[in-house]
Structures are given as structure tokens and as C-alpha cells.
């Protein structure tokens, strides 16, 4: 009973939060709602007896990825520009398409008879099992992911650090000057001093 109650509560919250993510005009609040949705999902993971994944979700998704996105938001977009058009021309077509897809997958999900007759208890030492699995059965994907992370790290640093490339903007900004010289310093103030 408690399980069902918790499930419906967090499911409703997750759906509401994700709707807020895609519909809210203020992008900072969108990111905040994303964190809320991730937290609800972490709660659902606990209901699914995956406490470790729930903790990792909070630690990495909320604590690192969402914060990174918030940083990018702060550094680029004008947050309070709420009167701007936020949606593109597909805003009526896309939901229909998504609803169609939803119906399709739901039909498939319902049609299939999953063999869930008995729910056996989960092993107690799930953490040890994950560790063993990562370093035995999944050692190759594990290595590939490690290398991918490293490559992404180097690549991201390389892309973000191209300060000697000239900014290509030539539009006139408010002061009447060309944007040329002024664009650089904001993002790369700390690199200049080295």
C-alpha cells in the first residue's frame, strides 16, 4: 500500500516536473525543475530497490550535470528574457507525434506478457554484485566508457578553450561599437592572465 502511494506520488511529481521543464519560459527554472524530476526518479529508484543508483543519481545527475547546465545557462542566455518566443513552428505538430509514439509503445508494452509472475527478493549485497559485474562481464564496456570520458574531457577543454580564434560577430551592439573586440573577454578573463 505504502509502496503504491509512494509510486503514484513520485510518478505524478516526476511527470509534472518534466512537463514544467519543457514548458517553462524561464530556462533557469526549467533546470531547477529538471533537478526536481531527477530527485523524484531517484525516489522511484529506491522503490525499485536500487538505492545505490538512486544515490549516484543524486550525486552525479543533480550535483554535477544539472549544475553544469545551470553554469552554461548563467554564462550564455539572458534568463529573464521571458517574452521571447520559446517554441518553434512545430509546437502543435510535435505533441501529436509524441502522443502517437506514446500510444504505440504503450500498446506494445501492454500487449507483451512479461513473465513477472513471482517477484523474488533482491540480493542483499547489490553493491558487491555491481562491482563484480562491472569488472568481469562488463569490463570491455567499462573500459570503453572510461576512455570515452577521458576523450570527452579533453575534447570539451579543447573546444571551449579556443580563444585565439577570432569571434565572427560583426553586429553592432548597444554602444555603437562593433562586437568584435568585446566578445572575448567575458568568457576567457581568467585565461588571459596566464
Amino acid at each position, binding site marked *: 500500500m505504502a509502496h503504491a502511494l509512494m509510486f503514484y506520488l513520485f510518478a505524478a511529481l516526476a511527470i509534472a516536473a518534466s512537463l514544467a521543464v519543457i514548458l517553462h519560459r524561464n530556462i533557469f527554472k526549467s533546470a531547477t525543475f529538471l533537478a526536481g524530476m531527477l530527485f523524484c526518479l531517484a525516489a522511484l529508484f529506491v522503490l525499485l530497490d536500487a538505492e545505490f543508483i538512486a544515490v549516484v543519481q543524486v550525486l552525479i545527475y543533480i550535483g554535477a550535470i544539472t*549544475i553544469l547546465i545551470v553554469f552554461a545557462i548563467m554564462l550564455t542566455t539572458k534568463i529573464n528574457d521571458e517574452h521571447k518566443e520559446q517554441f518553434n513552428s512545430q509546437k502543435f505538430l510535435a505533441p501529436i507525434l509524441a502522443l502517437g509514439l506514446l500510444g504505440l509503445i504503450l500498446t506494445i508494452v501492454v500487449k507483451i506478457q512479461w513473465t513477472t509472475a513471482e517477484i523474488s527478493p533482491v540480493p542483499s549485497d547489490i553493491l558487491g554484485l555491481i562491482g563484480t559485474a562491472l569488472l568481469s562481464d562488463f569490463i570491455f564496456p567499462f573500459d570503453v566508457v572510461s576512455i570515452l570520458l577521458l576523450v570527452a574531457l579533453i575534447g570539451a577543454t579543447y573546444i571551449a578553450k579556443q580563444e585565439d580564434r577570432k569571434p565572427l560577430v560583426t553586429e553592432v551592439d548597444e554602444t555603437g561599437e562593433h562586437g568584435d573586440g568585446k566578445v572575448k573577454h567575458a568568457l576567457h578573463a581568467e585565461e588571459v592572465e596566464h
Partner: protein
Amino acid sequence: MDVILGLLYVVILFSLVAVQVLILVFMERKVSAWIQSRIGPNRVGPWGLLQTTADIIKLITKENIRNIQSDKVIFFLAPILAFVAPFAGFVTIPVAENLGIQDLNMGAVYVFALGSSMVFSVIWAGYGSNNRYALIGAMRSAAQMISYEIPLVTSVLGVFLIAGTLSMREIVALQESGTWYVIYQPLGFILFLVAATAEANRAPFDLPEAESELVAGFHTEYSGMKFAFFFLAEYTEMLVACSLMTVLFLGGWLIPFVDNSQIPWWIHIFVFIFKVYSMIFLMMWFRWTFPRLRVDHLMQFGWKVLLPFALVNLVVTGAVALWLKS
């Protein structure tokens, strides 16, 4: 029934933490006074003991001021999250052999996860106040916190490697017979101490709220009760960090070289509290000794010194553990 019991736990824990924070604030003022050859608060109550109580009463009865253009909801939620996140970390910390609310299977990681979600409260505070100083302070603070989280977690991995478990209670039990993990992991302990100080935004890493540079960083706009919550959050975070240190490195409630099963549980509690308070004293001592870091040095220190040492520590620990095993 469970719900009522849980609520009871929360209320008890909250009052305990609040009292601890009162004591800690008083202790901080006294330690700072001694280091600067002063006397410190000595007027309100006997030996000035009621000084912090008076301060808190003043903060609570203060008018609640809010910038009219600030974001109401986010502005309100930020101090609450800032306090709740470290407060919830107390759930897993074992104070004595059978004392502690819940021993989670991955207790330590749970505490770190809560610590990482604290960053959000800082960003909320900065954004919600609609104030540039607050926003700059918040961004600095967030950058600092996510940078120092990595060495913080990496430095304790050695302990987990030796212990082979993430459960706090088992980690303490493994340190019976005086083999504290600080002996096996001195480097890890130092790194954890430094990173935890930075994580709690304490001096010398208190750039986010640098009084002389940024007014008060992300809580510039906060006053009264909400400010009190941020204050509470800082000290709670310190308590959690020091409790973690005690559990992971200093043998929790255990007394070394003594048969601990013969000792009554209330002595264990006192031993635990004594250890936690000595670590807190160390942190306060840091605060009143070291000058504040410059912002670029802060990042350099985190990434170029702490992280490499933490990784080296981890690799060496792993290699030695493997060698001993084979």
C-alpha cells in the same frame, strides 16, 4: 506508526543539532578570541554562555526583508534546502554501537550525495535574490563546491578499498583494536580534511562569502530567520563533515587499545563527541590562522594539488591492497 517514529527522530535530531550549533558558534567565538589574545563573549549569562542564544533570538525576531524583485519561491526555498541537505546526512552516522537512526548500505556515498545537492541551494540563493553580488558569490561558491567534491570523494575511496564496505557501522567495527584508518591513510585524511573545509565554505576557503570582498556572497540579501538558516547550515555541514572524518578515519566511538565491548555505551557517545569536537576545533584553528585564498589559486589548488594526490593515494592503496591479498 513508522511515520510517527520517523517524525519523532527528526524532531529529536533537529533539537540536538540546533543545540550543537549553539555550542559550536559559542566555541568558534571563544577560539577566535583566544587565538587573537582576547577574552571573547563573557557578558550574557555565566561566562557568556547565553551569548549565542541571545543572537539567535535576535535573528528570529528580526523583520523579514525581501527584495521586491527577487524570486519569491526560490528565495524562500534556498535556505531550507541549504539546511535540510546536510541535516539529512545525520541519518546514517552511527554515534555508538547501536545508536544511530539508520545504517544504510552505502551510508558514506549517501552523505556525499546530499552534500552535492547543497550546491543547488547556493545557486538558488544567488539567483533568487536578484542581486549581482549574490549571483557572483553563488557562482563562485558553486564552482568551488563542485571542484572540491571530486578530491573529497576520491580521498576517501582508499578507506572504502581497505574496508571493503560502504556501511558506516561496519567501517567503525573494522577499526577495532586501535587500527584507525588514519594510520593507513594519512594522506587521504589530510586531503579529506582540506576538501571538507572547502566543501563547508570555511576559511581559508570562504571565498563565496568573503566579507571584505563580496559583502556576504550568496546570502547578501538574506536577513533574520533565513540568514539564521544559512548560518545553521554552515555549522551543520561542519558537524557532518567532522562526524564523517571521525567515523571513516578516527575509529568512530572506539577507544584504542581497550576492549570496547566492556565499556558502557554512554562512554562511547562521549568518546565520539570528543573526537568530533577535536576535529571541529582543528577546523576553527585553521580559520583563524590561514589567510583566505585567491580565487584562481583556489581552483589551482583543488585541481592541481588535491586531485592528483588523491588519485595517487587511491592507486597506491589499491596496489598495496592487491599485493597484500596475493
